[in-house]
C-alpha cells in the first residue's frame, strides 16, 4: 500500500499520469496480473567452451561469456542442453531455424511458390505462431499495443530475418532503428489543442475509410491466396488506426535517443523497451538483434575487424573462438544492460519493471561453425513476480527448445498448454524453473 501511494505521488508530480493513461489505473487495481514477456534474439549461437562454467553450481556466471551477467545472477536461469528439431532431412542453416525459434513449428518446405534462397531447395515462411502473439491472442491485453516488436538491423523480408509470426506465414516486422522507434512510439506529442487533435484524427479516419473501400473493391476479383494477403494488409491498417488513436494519449516522452551508432544502438533500444513497459504501452514485446541470415557485421570495438560474425563463426581454431567469445560476451553485456534498465524502471505496484517481467534470450542455433542444433543457448531472466526460480545453471538432457516456449506460457498463466508447436515431442515446462503458484 505504501508502495502504491508513493507511486501515485510520483505520478502526480509527473503530470497526472493516471488521468492521462487510464490503463495504468486498471493495472494497479488488478491484483494478480501475469508478468510481462520479452523475447530476445542474438544470432549464431555461442562458443560453448567459453560459455559453460567450470562449476555449474554457485557462481555459474564465472565463464568468460557469462561474466557480464554476474550482477543479475540471482534472477537468471541459464539452460544448457536444449536442442532444436528442424523436422526435415536437410536444412538450410540459420534460415530454417529462425521461424522455428519462438513458434516451435518448422518452416514451410511444401510451398512450391517461394524459393527463398540460393540453395536448390524451396521453402516458404514459418508454419507456426510465435508464443508472444499466441499469448496476446489468449490474454487480450488492454494495452494500446497488444504486442511490440523492436530490433536492430533486421534487414529485408526473408524467413531468416524474421522470428515473430502472428499466424502461419504472417511475420511481424520489428522497428529496427532506435530513432524511428522513438519517433513512432513517443514522437507525436499530444496536441494541446484538443480541436486540432480531433481534426487530425478525423482526417486520418476519413482517408483510411476510402483506402479500405479500395481494398474491399479489389478483393472481389482475387483468388483465395491474394485475398488473404490483401485482408491481412487491411487488418493491419485498422490496427494501426486503433493504435494511433490511442497514442493521442501517449506515454510521457522519455529522452530521445542520441549518439546512435552500431555500438550503442542496442542499448538505446533497451532504454525504449524499459520506457514502453514502464508506461504500459504493451506487456508483450520482442527484441531481435540482427538476423540469422549470415550476419557478417563487424564489431571493431571487441576486436572483430575483418571477416564478419558469420564468416568467423564457421571457424573453430582457438584464436577465432577466443575472438568470437569476446563478441558473445559483449552481447551478454547488452543483455545485462537491458536487465539494468528494466530494473531501474519503477513499476506501478512500487516494484521495478524487471520484477514483473520474464525475459527470454535465445538464438537460431547452438554453435556457429558446424550449424549445430544441439545445445542451443537459452537464458531466462526475471524478477520476483515472474515466477522464475532464478540463480540456476540448469543442465538438461534430451529436451527440445519447445520446453522453453511452454515454460513461458506457464509463467504467463496459460498453464493449460503442455506442448507448443508441431515439432514438439515432449510435454510441460522445464522442470524446476518456475515456482508453483
Amino acid at each position, binding site marked *: 500500500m505504501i508502495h502504491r501511494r508513493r507511486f501515485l505521488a510520483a505520478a502526480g508530480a509527473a503530470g497526472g499520469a493516471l488521468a492521462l493513461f487510464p490503463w495504468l489505473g486498471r493495472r494497479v487495481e488488478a491484483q494478480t496480473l501475469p508478468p510481462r514477456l520479452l523475447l530476445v534474439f542474438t544470432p549464431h549461437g555461442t562458443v560453448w567452451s567459453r560459455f559453460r562454467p567450470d562449476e555449474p553450481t554457485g557462481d555459474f556466471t564465472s565463464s568468460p561469456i557469462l561474466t557480464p551477467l554476474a550482477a543479475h545472477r540471482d534472477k537468471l536461469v541459464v539452460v544448457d542442453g536444449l536442442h532444436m528439431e528442424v523436422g526435415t532431412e536437410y536444412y538450410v542453416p540459420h534460415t530454417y531455424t529462425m521461424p522455428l525459434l519462438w513458434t516451435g513449428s518448422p518452416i514451410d518446405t511444401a510451398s*512450391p511458390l*517461394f524459393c527463398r534462397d*540460393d540453395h*536448390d*531447395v524451396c521453402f516458404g515462411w514459418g508454419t507456426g505462431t510465435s508464443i508472444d502473439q499466441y499469448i496476446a491472442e489468449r490474454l487480450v491485453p488492454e494495452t494500446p499495443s497488444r504486442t511490440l516488436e523492436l530490433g536492430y538491423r533486421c534487414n*529485408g523480408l526473408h524467413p531468416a530475418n524474421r522470428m515473430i509470426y502472428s499466424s502461419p506465414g504472417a511475420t511481424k516486422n520489428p522497428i529496427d532503428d532506435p530513432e524511428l522507434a522513438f519517433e513512432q512510439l513517443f514522437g507525436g506529442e499530444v496536441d494541446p489543442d484538443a480541436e486540432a487533435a480531433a481534426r487530425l484524427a478525423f482526417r486520418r479516419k476519413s482517408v483510411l475509410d476510402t483506402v479500405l473501400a479500395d*481494398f474491399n473493391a479489389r478483393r472481389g476479383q482475387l483468388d483465395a491466396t491474394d485475398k488473404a494477403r490483401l485482408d491481412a494488409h487491411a487488418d493491419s491498417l485498422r490496427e494501426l488506426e486503433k493504435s494511433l488513436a490511442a497514442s493521442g494519449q501517449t506515454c510521457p516522452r522519455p529522452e530521445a535517443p542520441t549518439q546512435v551508432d552500431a555500438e550503442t544502438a542496442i542499448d538505446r533500444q533497451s532504454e525504449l523497451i524499459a520506457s514502453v513497459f514502464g508506461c504500459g504501452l504493451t506487456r508483450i514485446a520482442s527484441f531481435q538483434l540482427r538476423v540469422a541470415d549470415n550476419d557478417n557485421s563487424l564489431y571493431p570495438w571487441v576486436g572483430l*575487424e*575483418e571477416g564478419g560474425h558469420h564468416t568467423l563463426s564457421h571457424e573453430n581454431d582457438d584464436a577465432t573462438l577466443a575472438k568470437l567469445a569476446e563478441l558473445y560476451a559483449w552481447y551478454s553485456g547488452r543483455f545485462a544492460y537491458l536487465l539494468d534498465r528494466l530494473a531501474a524502471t519503477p513499476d506501478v505496484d512500487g516494484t521495478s519493471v524487471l520484477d514483473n517481467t520474464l525475459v527470454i534470450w535465445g538464438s537460431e542455433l547452438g554453435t556457429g561453425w*558446424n550449424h549445430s542444433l544441439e545445445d542451443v543457448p537459452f537464458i531466462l531472466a526475471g524478477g520476483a513476480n515472474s515466477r522464475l526460480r532464478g540463480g540456476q545453471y540448469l543442465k538438461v538432457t534430451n529436451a527440445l527448445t519447445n520446453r522453453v516456449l511452454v515454460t513461458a506460457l506457464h509463467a504467463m498463466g496459460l498453464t493449460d498448454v503442455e506442448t507448443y508447436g508441431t515439432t514438439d515431442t515432449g510435454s510441460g515446462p522445464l522442470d524446476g524453473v518456475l515456482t508453483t503458484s
Partner: protein
Amino acid sequence: MRRLTALQVERTVSDVFGVQVDLNVADERLLTFRSNISASIDTASARGYLDFASAVVAATDWQRCESGCLDWLLDEVGLLLFRRPLDDAERTRYSALYELALDNTDDPQEAAGWVAEAMLQSPTFLYLDEVATEAGVLDDYSLAARLALLLWGRNPDSSLLAQAEAGELSTPEQLAATVELMLADARTETGIRDFVDQWFDLERLDDPEVRPDVADLGSATIRALREEPVQYFLRLLRSEAGVERLLTDSTTVASTELEELYGADIVDSDADVFELDPERRGGILSLPGVVAALSHAHRTSPTLRGKTVLTGLLCTPPQPPPANIDTTLPEVDEGVSTRERIEQHMESPVCGNCHRGMDGIGLALEKLDWLGRYREEENGIAIDDTSTFPLGSEEVTVQGAAELGAVLGASSSVAACVSRQWLRYALGVTETAAVDCLVEDLASEATGARGLERMMVKALASDWFRLSPEAAP
C-alpha cells in the same frame, strides 16, 4: 500478386509529384532479386506507407494544380499511380473524400492532400492489378505496367499508357517492337541497374558496418564500384554483344574514380572506355565492384565468389549442408594463404564434398583482392590462382580470372543461366520446370551478334511474360 518494391514506389512518386521521399517498408528477396510476392503487410509496414503518404503530401507543391486539384488527381495522378484510368466507383469515392475534406477544412489544397494520401495507400497503387482476357493474355495496361516496372523501375509514363489504351501491346510482335524501343531508351538504365545490382548483390558494398574497408574508399568510389558492372552490361547490350562477351570482354567504361584502383591493369583508354589487360581482367566477374562485393572485410571469400558463379551464372546452387553432423575442422596454421586455409578445411570430407566445387571456382579469382585490386602476392607468398572444378559433365582447370571468364563464356550452361536470371527478374516469381523449354530457346538466341538484346526481347515477348500467372504455359 506482386507488391511494388520500395524503389519502384519512390521513383513513381517522384515522377508524379516531383518529390523525393524515402519509403520505409522492407522488400522480399526472391533468390537474389527483390520481388514482393508472399509476405503480407503488418502494422509496422502499414505505418511505413502511412508516413510515406503524409510526407509526400506535405512536400508536394500544390500550387501546380491550384485551379483544379481534384481533376488533376482523378485524371492524371490516378492514371499514373494506378497504371490505368480510374473506374467510376473510384472516381466517386475519391470525389466524396475531396468534398468531405472541403466541408471540414474549407481549403482545396488540404482537400487534395487527403485524396493523394488515400491514393498513395491504395492497394491499386501498391499491388499490381493484372487483368487477363479469357485466353489468359494480360490486357495492355497490365503489360505496360510489367514492362515499365521491369525496364524503367517505375510505373509507365503517359505515353506508354496511351499505347496501352490504343491496344498497341496486344500481339507478341507489337510487344517485341516496344521492348526493342525501350531497351534503346536511356530510362532503361534504371531497370538494368536493378537487375545487375541485385544479380551480383552489389548492395553489399554499401554497408559500412559489414564493409568498413569499402566505406573507407569514400562514397564517390563506392558509387563507381557499384555502377561499373551496370554500365559494363549496358555497354555490351548497346554494342550488340552476345552473352559470351559478358564473361570475357576486357573493355570497360571509363571511370575517373576507379582509375587508381585499376592502376597498371589499364593498357589503353579514351574518354569513354578503359582497355584492361586481358591477362588480368576479362568479363563481369573480374570487375572490381563484383569481386569486392563478393568478399568480406579485409579478406577475399573464394566460397562466396564460387557460390555466386554456381548460383548466378551456372544455376546449379550448392546443396545446404546436412543437419546435425560432426563437421570437426582441422586446426589451421597461422599466417598461411587463403588458398591453404581453404585447402586445409577441405580435408574434412563432409565439408569438402560441396566446398571443393564452390571454393575451387572462387580460387581462380584470388589475384583480385577484397577491394577488387589486382595483386600477385598474399602475406608475401605468390598467389596460385589455378582452379579445377566440374563444369557440365567434364572437369576443367583454369588459371586466373580471364581464363575462368573464357571457359564460362564458352559454356552453353552459362548462356542458359543468364537467360534464366533475366526471365526470373522479369517475371518476379520462381519459375517452374515448365519454363526450361523457353530457357533453351533463349539460350540459343543469347550468343553471337546482338545476342543479349535478342534474348532479352524474346523473353519479354514470350507467353511467359504475356500471360497471367495462372495461364502461363
